[in-house]
């Protein structure tokens, strides 16, 4: 019996590790290797160790192509992600706070809207029409607001659920001290819901940084592009420069990887616990 568990523990584990390496790690190694090869070697598209390492050359060259457009795209994506996530967190927390604390007849309506927002896909052309009407089409703020609108339901759901674990007595103590709603929210509630805030921040950052569809529809074009959109266009224009293309893919993979290394637990919690409620 003991031998059997031991065999399972080591045998099963070893086989699983080998399979995981083959299935899940190899594609990423392929990206890394191809991104590190010279132009000629990369064009063979073989899965092999680079004979010479050109990784930093390739990365530098990608950043500088087309007058530094990729660099600008990274800045755009960073601004987009930070701005959208900040708005989602603050506005979502405000809604989650009231929704959980104050019982009124609208609550079921708001809960319904949250559910609808989680499920229903965006109506593309009418959204563009609205953005044009407000002068926001093809602008970075326009895309930010779209992400806020579509990201809010998820955030509200998480915040509402977490607010349940924040004791009301704390609110009441603050109110007796004469705190208004804004001070109550800012100085009592926000610090207390930090764990769930981090979850929302991390999950939404990854989602928004990786988004392609919304950028394609609402912020098209190359000059003002996000990284995902530029990567997609890059693929069409530089088909023969595989080393550069994969260096670009590598660059786009790094931010989520860094996020994952630092916030492994929050990401996993957010993606699983959040979705369980939906």
């Amino acid at each position, binding site marked *: 019996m003991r031998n059997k568990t031991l065999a399972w523990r080591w045998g099963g584990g070893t086989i699983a590790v080998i399979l995981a390496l083959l299935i899940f790690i190899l594609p990423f190694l392929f990206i890394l290797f191809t991104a590190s090869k010279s132009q000629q070697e990369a064009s063979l598209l073989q899965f092999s160790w680079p004979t010479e390492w050109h990784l930093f050359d390739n990365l530098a060259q990608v950043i500088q192509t087309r007058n530094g457009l990729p660099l600008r795209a990274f800045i755009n994506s960073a601004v987009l992600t930070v701005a959208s996530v900040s708005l989602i967190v603050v506005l979502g927390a405000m809604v989650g706070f009231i929704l959980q604390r104050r019982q009124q007849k609208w609550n079921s309506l708001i809960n319904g809207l949250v559910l609808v927002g989680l499920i229903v896909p965006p109506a593309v052309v009418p959204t563009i*029409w609205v953005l*044009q*009407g*407000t*002068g*926001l*089409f*093809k*602008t970075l703020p326009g895309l930010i607001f779209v992400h806020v609108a579509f990201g809010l339901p998820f955030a509200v759901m998480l915040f509402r659920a977490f607010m349940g674990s924040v004791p009301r007595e704390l609110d009441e103590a603050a109110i007796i001290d004469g705190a208004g709603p804004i001070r109550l929210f800012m100085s009592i509630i926000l610090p207390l819901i930090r764990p769930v805030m981090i979850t929302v921040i991390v999950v939404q950052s990854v989602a928004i940084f990786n988004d392609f569809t919304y950028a394609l529809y609402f912020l*098209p*074009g*190359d000059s003002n592009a996000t990284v995902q959109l530029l990567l997609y266009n890059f693929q069409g224009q530089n*088909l*023969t420069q595989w080393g550069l293309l994969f260096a670009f893919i590598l660059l786009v993979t790094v931010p989520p990887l860094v996020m994952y290394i630092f916030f492994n637990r929050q990401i996993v919690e957010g993606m699983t616990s959040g979705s369980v409620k939906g």
Partner: protein
Amino acid sequence: MSFPSIRRTAVAVGVSAAALSLVLTGCSSSGSSDSGSVTISYLVDNGAATVEAGNALIADFQAKNPNIKVELETRPPGAEGDNLIKTKLATGDMNSVFQYNTGSLLKALEPDKSLVNVADQPWVSRLDDNFKTVASTENGTYGVPTGQSSAGAIIYNKDVYAKLGLQIPKTWDEFMANNKKILDSGTAAPIAQTYGDTWSSQLFVLGDFYNVQSQDADWAKKYTENKAKFADEPGLSGFEHLEEALKAGYFNKDYATATYDDGVRMIAKGEAAHYPILTFAASALSVNYPEAVKTVGTFPIPGKSADKNGLTVWMPSAAYIPKSTEGAELDASKKFLDFLATPDACKIVSEKIAPTGPFVIDGCTLPDSVPAIVSDMQPYFDEGKTGLALEFVSPVKGPALEQITVAVGSGITPAKQGAGQYDEDVKKQAQQLGLEGW
């Protein structure tokens, strides 16, 4: 809401806001300044060659007209560019001069309402008749050519032909016989197809239009009136050719993933014998394979009968002036159009962009040495055996043709069914344009 003339509120809101955003981003920086000099803006597509040629043209024009300053602006190509052009025109916020397609895409701009009629300009009489048709409506002429014509034809490797002792085919049967010999000899793939770039799959259909027209001179008119269909002969033959060539096994083995660049390479290096494509391939050829400019030639897509074979020709884009350009700006813009019609301007264009075919304005000639792709076309022009592609004689063009021709050329859809699908596809466009009979 400063655009009261817009017809519908729905559009007015969207459109005026778009105008606002354009103003904010500084797209419309034109007008006259105090010193008597005028600044105009010129909008072109953002292709590297177009931009380079545009800058060179502007430099020369400014040297000749010191009072006029021209600013070059670029726009994205393709569907996105189409939308941008339409939005700018609808909002009255177009640049002083802009470059855009002729033919069906021009018709979609409603030129009589949105563009300045330049029929009274001196250079109009020097325009090639074909070009004049595609840059005009019944009420006026709108554009000056900004490049050369090109053809939808078969480019082929002359070395392969010489080695196997083949003759240029005049009919489809001769063409298929050549393909068989090439296949049997094992020297090269008979026909290059490159569905990695889906647009390149359309040439068997689009380039066959001379043959369609030669069998039924009124076909384009009937087609526009919803009376002729691709699912019937002679329109069907382009789809059938594609199917036959596939079934005979004449395509390169990686046809499903190869790209346009691969196709040019295959012909340049003799890996494939034929490639149905637009002759603007000459520019890719002279940049990437300069050693092959003499070995790659052109012949028209063969049809049913030898004496009715000719080239299907694409007209160049043109430069237009929108109605929103007025006063001193309009005068300067007209001068700029005059300049674009001069042999000097043509010379600059052919220096910057590898020639793709003859110019379409009198007085402009190609340089002495041109790729064989282009010089092979000249006899057909001299003999008058050229006809315009369908998109220049009918406003009806569907967006899904390239997927349909990939499906037919990959054996997913039978030719007849594919042609029928395309007939359905164009219906949407025709209805969108509000044409009679749809």
